[in-house]
């Protein structure tokens, strides 16, 4: 019995320790970052290599990059997920192949994505350091998680819905757009948000694809620096940049926080929908 107590106590300590560690990091982030955080910070461009000014151009670049990635990855991910969700019926072997390759894809280190993006998008396709290069590279990265989440959502649409659609003579396309997707919509939203979150956090894949310059990009072919890259640059290369690095990190984490809140909301609606 004593070993019971001891072990239980150990586990409690470990878990509370992990919690404490996390709280420490978050509080530290908030404390160090809040000092430089202000409306001005969010709306002005960086000056003096980022030691002064704000992050507006970076927020814009980040938004462009993430949007590009999402707009490209969503349709491909959606359709692939539809195929995989039906998978059991036809093309079972093809589905397994797709799934296997996606598993591999999701394990590729992000720096290797950076290498690939650089070699393929920037050089071979001639896009150079650009929002487009960065966005396309990220699209490759977030595709697996998009597909996986959407597939799960589609699979959990009750079989009766599909039966009902068939019994009414609805075509596959109509069943998809009017029955399956509406039913799976919250799950799709979860996948989207997870993908966007991943894209926002990405750094290594962007340094050599979307560029390093801090000004606001004119268009998709112009280069731009993502917020995460900015944090890296300020921390590593700019003496005295720590304060603003922390503020930027705080902004980034807050954005992710909001996104995660949205995930939870969408997930709750998802499970509620299934229950009715």
């Amino acid at each position, binding site marked *: 019995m004593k070993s019971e107590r001891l072990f239980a106590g150990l586990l409690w300590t470990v878990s509370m320790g992990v919690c404490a560690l996390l709280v420490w990091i978050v509080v530290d982030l908030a404390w160090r970052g809040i000092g430089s955080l202000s409306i001005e910070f969010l709306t002005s461009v960086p000056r003096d290599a980022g030691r002064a000014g704000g992050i507006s151009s970076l927020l814009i670049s980040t938004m462009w990059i993430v949007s590009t990635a999402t707009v490209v990855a969503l349709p491909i991910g959606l359709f692939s997920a539809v195929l995989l969700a039906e998978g059991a019926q036809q093309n079972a072997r093809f589905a397994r192949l797709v799934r296997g*390759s996606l598993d591999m894809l999701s394990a590729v280190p992000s720096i290797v994505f950076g290498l*690939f993006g650089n*070699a393929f998008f920037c050089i071979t396709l001639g896009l150079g350091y650009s929002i487009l290069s960065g966005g396309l590279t990220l699209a490759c990265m977030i595709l697996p998680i998009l597909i996986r989440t959407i597939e799960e959502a589609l699979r959990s649409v009750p079989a009766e819905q599909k039966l009902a659609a068939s019994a009414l003579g609805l075509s596959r396309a109509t069943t998809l757009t009017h029955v399956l997707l509406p039913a799976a919509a919250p799950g799709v939203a979860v996948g989207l948000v997870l993908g966007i979150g991943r894209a926002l956090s990405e750094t290594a894949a962007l340094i050599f694809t979307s560029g390093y310059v801090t000004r606001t990009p004119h268009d998709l072919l112009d280069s731009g620096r993502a917020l995460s890259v900015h944090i890296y640059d300020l921390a590593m290369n700019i003496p005295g940049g720590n304060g603003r690095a922390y503020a930027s990190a705080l902004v980034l984490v807050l954005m992710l926080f909001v996104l*995660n809140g949205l995930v939870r909301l969408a997930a709750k609606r998802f499970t509620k929908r299934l229950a009715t």
Partner: protein
Amino acid sequence: MSPYARPKRDRALSVVLLSSAALAASLIVLILVFVFGEARGALRAEGFTAFLTDAGWHPTDGEFGLLPMAAATLATTLGALVMAAPLGIGAGLFNALIAPRPVARFHRALVEVLAGIPSVVFGLWGLVVLVPLIGGGERSGQGLLAASVVLALMILPTIALSTEAALERVPRELLQGAAALGLGPVACARRVALPAARRGVIAGLVLATGRAIGETMAVLMVAGNVVAWPAGLREPLRTLTGNIALEMGYATQEHRSVLFVAGLVLMLAVALLVVLASLFGGAPTATSHGGGASSA
């Protein structure tokens, strides 16, 4: 699905679905082709062994010894595992079996938050808070220990969440049987649940290892960036991933090609781990959100 209401539309849909899936499936091949293509130059010029036997890393002089950096990658990964595995498994155990429901929910939420923090932010924290702590004022704290700690923080959620998931999959009857024999919750966890969940836990560990190997930013920011064999906890080193990130910006021709070789090595290592993990029943896309966010 019934094919006759709109046969043309359905045929078009089939084409769209198949081509999307084919595109998605071909990405990994595309990546392999391009990374290998860029690496080929160096491989042809230097041959395999050069990367293993060259004295050091002096790319401008044509010395491309990758071993010290590979060793650094392994050392940091191992260090991270040594710290994160017991903590992660413990946290997972705690959540699945010991904690009362509200505590477990809170705890899991926190772990998921941890999983969502981008690696640059970990790197920043490591640089500003951890490194001085380790250095203790007399020297730079950048080195193996700092890198291991930061990596451990990053793979902890993966291990914790996959352990918890594996434990939840243990059939109820097994645990009930153990309880009926008089085993308390902790003994039950140790002697019945954990062994039953062994495969899932190992799969989670393997995947976490893959993520640790592939991690770039956080390690780069606290490891000290000197190409050297891992010498001590506070000695600086540079991992393969960090090296690529540092030098891609200005590497030309052969140097650049060698960086792609390093990328290839990383891909192969991680691919092996994925295959290993799937043998234990885990897949990167199948584990919970711990595998979702930052692996930058």
